[in-house]
Structures are given as structure tokens and as C-alpha cells.
């Protein structure tokens, strides 16, 4: 056995034995191995014993040196640990700090946490803004849809206003073929008398019923949509303000009402349509602007970070072209469309980006282009043309209304609407209540000058002689007092008596058309004057002795022979017949008084 070497403190080295042992083990001798282990263990024990003795036998100076070395080693270890921990701490500190800064992320091409946080915060805000904008865009589109539906309904359709007249009178039709068909006298909303057969009336009533059903259900749908939209729009004060007037008017409408469409419903609906027109003007522009904003946003949202250079170039050109779009300048759409048509988007290899671009500008390979850009281009041109149409329509003179008003005034005096204040003045201005005295024979109106020439005549019995000029003066005042006419001129007062003894006064006046919305001082003047006249009439009525009236003899006849000397007794009953009214003649005990009495009586009866 070789002698084992010892370490500086006398500990024997065990290398040679274990090496030999392993060699023997490798040789595969198991019994040898056990014996060798036992022997070596004995040697180790004796060696340890020897070493204890040898330690004690080491000189003291050497032992101190060794101890000092050991202490130094321990201190060094402490220092080393300290340094390691401090360095680790500092490293940890810097690591977290650097992690937070862009150092590692930039180094390894990854995103810094704070940058990521900021980017995602920005993305979230952008998403929320987009969400809010999209909601607003949607709401405004729904508003436009709603007002379009409101404007599309026509409650002024004559068929809706048709009503079967009560106490209808059956008369034969005046037609070329001698049919025996009987007709009913009906009056339409304009006060015109129309003769219709029973079959025609039933057909009209059926048509009306179908139309009423259609419009009332359409109106119910509109109200439902308005209600939902109104609830949603409460969160958006800007739109709510716009819609408030429309919603208020619509809320007052009951589409299931019994007498649909009642005057109240029509009045609310007319106000709703007026509000809808105002809303539509604004909302159409707003929707176009939203669409353009959306188009631009869509183009800027295309991510070109990891795409080919060609794609980048196409997208950049597209963005530049789209940025030029301005809803205020329709030609900017033509320019942008021209530029975009020149772009070859088929070069784009990334399908996702290609789809996004197609959504904005349409697919050049498809015949039908339903892209957002084309919709916006259509709308921008539509808007300009709609404005032109609205301007032209607004400038139009509604001649049928002008003629109707002129005829109404010729019969009743100035229009009732302007004489508000709670007092109906028609009774005081019943210039020609039966439409028999004044006849308007011709109208000639010119839009450019806003003037109208009226020609006609007033034709009455001889008794009318004393009132003919007054009647014409009343008529002129009534035209002047009307909200529809002003500056009456060119009148000449003259009268003539025909062979039948009737008094004829020609009527020839020029009028200027007046905007009914503009208050004319003379209208008020006349109105006031007419109010005074009404008060006077009330006084007249009080002064009439009804009992005395009964003693007056009246006769109504078209028989010229009885006109001059008729002195029939009035028996408390007036007999009128359609065919005789043209030649009404009045006589009384005292001829000079009879005209005034008749007029007073006529007015009372009219009341």
C-alpha cells in the first residue's frame, strides 16, 4: 500500500486507495473489494487518531498563522457575499428600471411595458371614441331615416280629407249622354262642390279607408321609432335639441284616433314636417361629414407596419387622396375619385389590407361599386341639387292658393286667420256669402312682378244700386286687409243697368302678392276697422225690432212682373230654391228701408 499524502493540517489524502478500489471494482472481484474496504476503514480510523495526535503536536506559531489565514478567508467570503448581494441588488434595481425603460425592449426588438401601457391606453381611448362616434353616426342616420319617413307621408292628400256629406241632395248629372244616374252633392276641403254618384262615393270611401289604414300604420311605426330614438338620444344633448320640436309634435299624435286624420292631428303633423325639414337640412350635412370622417379614419387605420413597399406606397397615396375630401367642396370628391381610379390596388398582396381598401373605395374589378366613397360622392352632389330644388320650390308661387284666396275674399272678405283675437269676423265681411253677387271672370298673375290682375263684375238687382259702390269698396278693403294681397290699385267705380233692370258694376283691380308670414300694417288696420264694424253690427242687431220685422212683407221671386209691386206678407218662413236665388228681389212696405233691413236680416241669419 502506498503511503497516503497529507494536507497542510495533516489530513491524509484518500485518492490512491479509492483509485485502487475502483480499479479492483472494475476488475470485478467482489470479495477483494469488501476486504479492501474493511482494511481501508481501519487505516482511516488509525490515521484520524494519528492526525489528532499530530495536530496537537503542530507548533503554536504555525497554528496561529493558519488560524489567521482561515479568518481572512472567512472575511473574504463575507465580503464576497456582500459584494454579490449588493451587485445582485443593484442589478435587480437596474434590471427593473431598465425593464421599465425601453432598454431591453429596444435591444431585443420588444415593446416596453410603459410604452405598451400607453399605446394600449391610447388604443382603448381610440376605440371608445370610435364607438361613441359610430353610435352618433348611427343615431344621425336613423334620425335622417326618421325625418325622411315623416316627410314622405302626405296627410293633405284630398282622399284622406274626403267626408260623406250629410243631407246630400240628389240631382241629375249634367252630361251629354242622357243617363238616369242620380248624383250626390259633395263639398271638398277647398269648398268646391262636386257631384258624385253613389258608386263613385263608395269607391272613394273604400280608397280612403285603405289609404287611412296605410298611413295610420306608417305613422304608428314612425312614432315607435321616434320614441326609441328619443330615449337613446337623451344622452346626446346636441341631437336632442335638434329633435325636440319633432318629437314633441309626434308625441301629440294618436294614429289610432277615431276620425283619422283629425284637424288636430294634421296640425301636429304639419308642425312635425316643418321641424323635420329643418332637421333634414342639418342632419344631411352632418351625416355626410360623418361619412367622410369615417372614410378618412378607415384609411388611417390601415396598419402598414409589416407590409410590402408597394402596399405602403398605394396606401400612402390613397390616404393623401382621401385627405383632400371636403363635404363643403363637391369637386374635391371628383378630384379624389380621379386620383384613386389611377391607383392600382390589385398590386396589394396582403388580402386583409386589400379588403379594407375595397370597403373604402370599392372593388375596381366589380361592376357595381357600393363603396363608402362613392356613396359620399353621390350624396355630396345630391345635396347641392337638393338645395337647388328646394330653392326653386321655395320661390314658386302657389297660384291655386292665390286664386282660392281671391275667391274666398270675394265671398267672405279678408281671410279669417289673420283676424285672430278670438272674434270671427266673417259675419261682418260677408261680401257675397252666396257667391252670386260678385263673379271673378279672369285672373292674370305674373311671378316675376308678383302681381295679379283680377277682372270680374258685381251684378245685383236694382235695390243693389244704392250699395254697389260700398260693396266694391268693402271688397277692395278686404283684399288689402288680407294676408295674401296688398297694394290694391287700378280700380274704377262704375255701374250700369241692364235690360232686366239689374245693376252691373265692373271689377277691375290690380293686386300685389303678399307673403302671408309678413305682417302688413294695413292688414292690421283693416282688421281693426273690421272689428269696429262688427261691433257696430252687433249694435245694429240689438236695435232691430224682431217683432216689427215680422210685419214687413218680403217676396223672393224671379218673376219680373211681381218684382215692382209685390207686397206679399212675410209669414215667418223664407222659401228658398236654388234656381230662384239669382233673381232674389226684396220689397217692403218702405222701399228705401228694405235694403238695410234685408242686409241686417241677412247678416243675422248668417250668424
Amino acid at each position, binding site marked *: 500500500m502506498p503511503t497516503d499524502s497529507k494536507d497542510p493540517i495533516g489530513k491524509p489524502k484518500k485518492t490512491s486507495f479509492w483509485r485502487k478500489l475502483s480499479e479492483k471494482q472494475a476488475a470485478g472481484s467482489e470479495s477483494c473489494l469488501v476486504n479492501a474496504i474493511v482494511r481501508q476503514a481501519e487505516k482511516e480510523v488509525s490515521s484520524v487518531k494519528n492526525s489528532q495526535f499530530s495536530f496537537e503536536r503542530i507548533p503554536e506559531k504555525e497554528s496561529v498563522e493558519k488560524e489567521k489565514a482561515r479568518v481572512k478567508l472567512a472575511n473574504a467570503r463575507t465580503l464576497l457575499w456582500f459584494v454579490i448581494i449588493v451587485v445582485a441588488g443593484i442589478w435587480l434595481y437596474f434590471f427593473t428600471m431598465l425593464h421599465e425603460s425601453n432598454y431591453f425592449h429596444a435591444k431585443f426588438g420588444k415593446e416596453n411595458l410603459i410604452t405598451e401601457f400607453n399605446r394600449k391606453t391610447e388604443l382603448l381611448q381610440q376605440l371608445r371614441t370610435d364607438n361613441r362616434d359610430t353610435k352618433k353616426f348611427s343615431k344621425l342616420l336613423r334620425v335622417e331615416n326618421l325625418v325622411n319617413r315623416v316627410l314622405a307621408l302626405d296627410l293633405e292628400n284630398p282622399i284622406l280629407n274626403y267626408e260623406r256629406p250629410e243631407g246630400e241632395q240628389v240631382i241629375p248629372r249634367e252630361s251629354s249622354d242622357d243617363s238616369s244616374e242620380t248624383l250626390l252633392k259633395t263639398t271638398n276641403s277647398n269648398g268646391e262642390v262636386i257631384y258624385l254618384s253613389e258608386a263613385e262615393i263608395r269607391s272613394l270611401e273604400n280608397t280612403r279607408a285603405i289609404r287611412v289604414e296605410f298611413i295610420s300604420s306608417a305613422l304608428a311605426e314612425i312614432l315607435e321609432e321616434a320614441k326609441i330614438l328619443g330615449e337613446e338620444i337623451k344622452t346626446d344633448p346636441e341631437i336632442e335639441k335638434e329633435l325636440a320640436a319633432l318629437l314633441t309634435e309626434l308625441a301629440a299624435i294618436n294614429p289610432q284616433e277615431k276620425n283619422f286624420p283629425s284637424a288636430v292631428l294634421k296640425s301636429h303633423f304639419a308642425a312635425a314636417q316643418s321641424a323635420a325639414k329643418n332637421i333634414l337640412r342639418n342632419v344631411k350635412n352632418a351625416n355626410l361629414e360623418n361619412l367622410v370622417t369615417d372614410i378618412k379614419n378607415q384609411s388611417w387605420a390601415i396598419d402598414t407596419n409589416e407590409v410590402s413597399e408597394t402596399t405602403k406606397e398605394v396606401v400612402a397615396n390613397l390616404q393623401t387622396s382621401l385627405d383632400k375630401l371636403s363635404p363643403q367642396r363637391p369637386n374635391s370628391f371628383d378630384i379624389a375619385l380621379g386620383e384613386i381610379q389611377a391607383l392600382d390596388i390589385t398590386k396589394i398582396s396582403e388580402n386583409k389590407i386589400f379588403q379594407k381598401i375595397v370597403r373604402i373605395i370599392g372593388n375596381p374589378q366589380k361592376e357595381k361599386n357600393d363603396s363608402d366613397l362613392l356613396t359620399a360622392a353621390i350624396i355630396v352632389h345630391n345635396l347641392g341639387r337638393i338645395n337647388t330644388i328646394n330653392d326653386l320650390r321655395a320661390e314658386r308661387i302657389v297660384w291655386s292658393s292665390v286664386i282660392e284666396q281671391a275667391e274666398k275674399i270675394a265671398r267672405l272678405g279678408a281671410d279669417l286667420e289673420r283676424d285672430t283675437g278670438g272674434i270671427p269676423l266673417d259675419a261682418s265681411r260677408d261680401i257675397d256669402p252666396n257667391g252670386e253677387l260678385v263673379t271673378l*271672370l279672369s285672373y292674370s298673375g305674373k311671378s316675376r312682378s308678383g302681381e295679379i290682375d283680377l277682372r270680374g263684375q258685381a251684378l245685383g238687382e236694382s235695390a243693389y244700386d244704392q250699395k254697389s259702390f260700398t260693396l266694391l269698396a268693402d271688397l277692395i278693403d278686404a283684399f288689402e286687409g288680407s294676408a295674401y294681397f296688398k297694394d290694391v290699385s287700378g280700380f274704377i267705380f262704375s255701374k250700369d243697368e241692364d235690360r232686366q233692370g239689374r245693376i252691373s258694376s265692373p271689377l277691375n283691380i290690380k293686386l300685389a302678392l303678399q307673403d302671408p308670414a309678413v305682417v302688413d300694417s294695413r292688414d292690421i288696420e283693416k282688421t281693426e276697422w273690421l272689428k269696429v264694424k262688427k261691433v257696430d253690427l252687433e249694435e245694429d242687431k240689438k236695435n232691430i225690432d224682431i217683432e216689427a220685422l215680422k210685419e214687413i212683407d218680403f217676396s223672393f221671386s224671379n218673376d219680373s212682373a211681381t218684382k215692382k209691386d209685390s207686397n206679399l206678407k212675410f209669414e215667418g218662413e223664407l222659401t228658398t230654391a236654388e234656381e230662384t236665388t239669382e233673381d232674389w228681389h226684396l220689397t217692403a212696405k218702405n222701399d228705401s228701408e228694405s235694403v238695410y233691413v234685408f242686409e241686417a236680416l241677412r247678416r243675422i241669419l248668417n250668424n
Partner: protein
Amino acid sequence: MTKYTTRLRQGANIRLGITVIIAALAAVFMAWPNYQKLIKTHANIFELDSQIADSELELESERDQYRLLKAKYSIRAETDQRIIATILPEKTEETKIIRELEKKANELTGSDKSLVLESVNFGKATSIKDVDYLILPIKIKLLGTKEKLMTFLRYLEKTGNINSDDDEATRLLDVKDVSMKIKDRGSKTEMTEEINVELAVNAYSLPSLEEIAASNKAK
């Protein structure tokens, strides 16, 4: 001596322990806030991711609805375009006007010929300064009863309604001048008397979009 060295070794171990503890505390003290910040940032980013996912879902749903509305809006825009093209066409289209007028007159008149379209004269379309449309003057002569003539007049006054249905849209006709004269009352009543009417009507047309685009380019 043994005790001395033992104390030295124990002291070194204690110093080592204290140093380790201090160094660990210092490291924790220095790194902990940043570590916490890091954890918080991670949590915030996680929360953001969740909110972004929700918002994206909501946005997608809103966008779907917006797309549907936009599709309707696009259809409406095309309908408007067709209606506008009827109301204000890009050509004067006189023949179309005469067909429309005769059709309406025929609808109103019956076997009694209560409305007769006597003549329709077209003038030359002219442009006016500062407006982008052409004016086509038309003179119309009619003979008929008052009721039918007034209905015809009301029809003309209702033409060019932008809010009408696609198939009900009519060319915008503007009655500029009206002249009505009772032909001969005789024994006839107000309902049957014949009235001569002369109307000066304007129709309008617009330059085409291509012409506008060319004009814009020229500018």
C-alpha cells in the same frame, strides 16, 4: 487560543449573516418599489387588454349596425339620385314633359272632355348667370272646367317633390304666370262653365356630373 479562533470564526459568520441580511434588505428596498410597479403595470396592461377586447367587441357590434344603416343610407342616396334625376334631369327632355302633361290631363278629363290640353309650346333652354341650371320655358294652353283646371294647377304645383317615392317623382315644373278667363258662362253653372287657361311654366335641367367634373378640372 481555541476559544479566540472560535470567536473570530463566529464573528465572521455573524458579520456574514448581517451583511447578507442588510444587502438583501437593501436590494429588496431598492428593487421592491420597481418590482411592485412592474407588477402593477402588468396588471394594468392585463386590465387594458380586457377592456380593449370588450371595446373591440362593442365597436364591432356598433360598426355592424352602422354598416347596415350605411347600406340603407347608400340605397337612399341612390334613390335620391334617381329622384333628383327625374326632378332636375341632365337633359331638357321635352318629349318626356309632354307625355307627363298629356297623361295627367287624360287622367283628369272624362268622357265629357272637362279638361283639354290645347297646346304646349317649348321655348329654347337658356342658362342664367350665377345659377347652375338651365331654364326651359313652356307655354301651356288648357280648356276645361274650373274644378279640373284647379286640380291640374295643383298637380303642377306639387311637381318636383324630393320626398316623394321613387316611382312617383315628377319633373319640377314652376308655374310662373297664370291667365284664366271664363270662356262663355251663358246658362252654365260655375261647375260646368268652360275656362281658358294659359300657363307660363318653367322646367329646369342641370349639367351632367361629367360636365361638372370637366368644368372643375378646367378651373
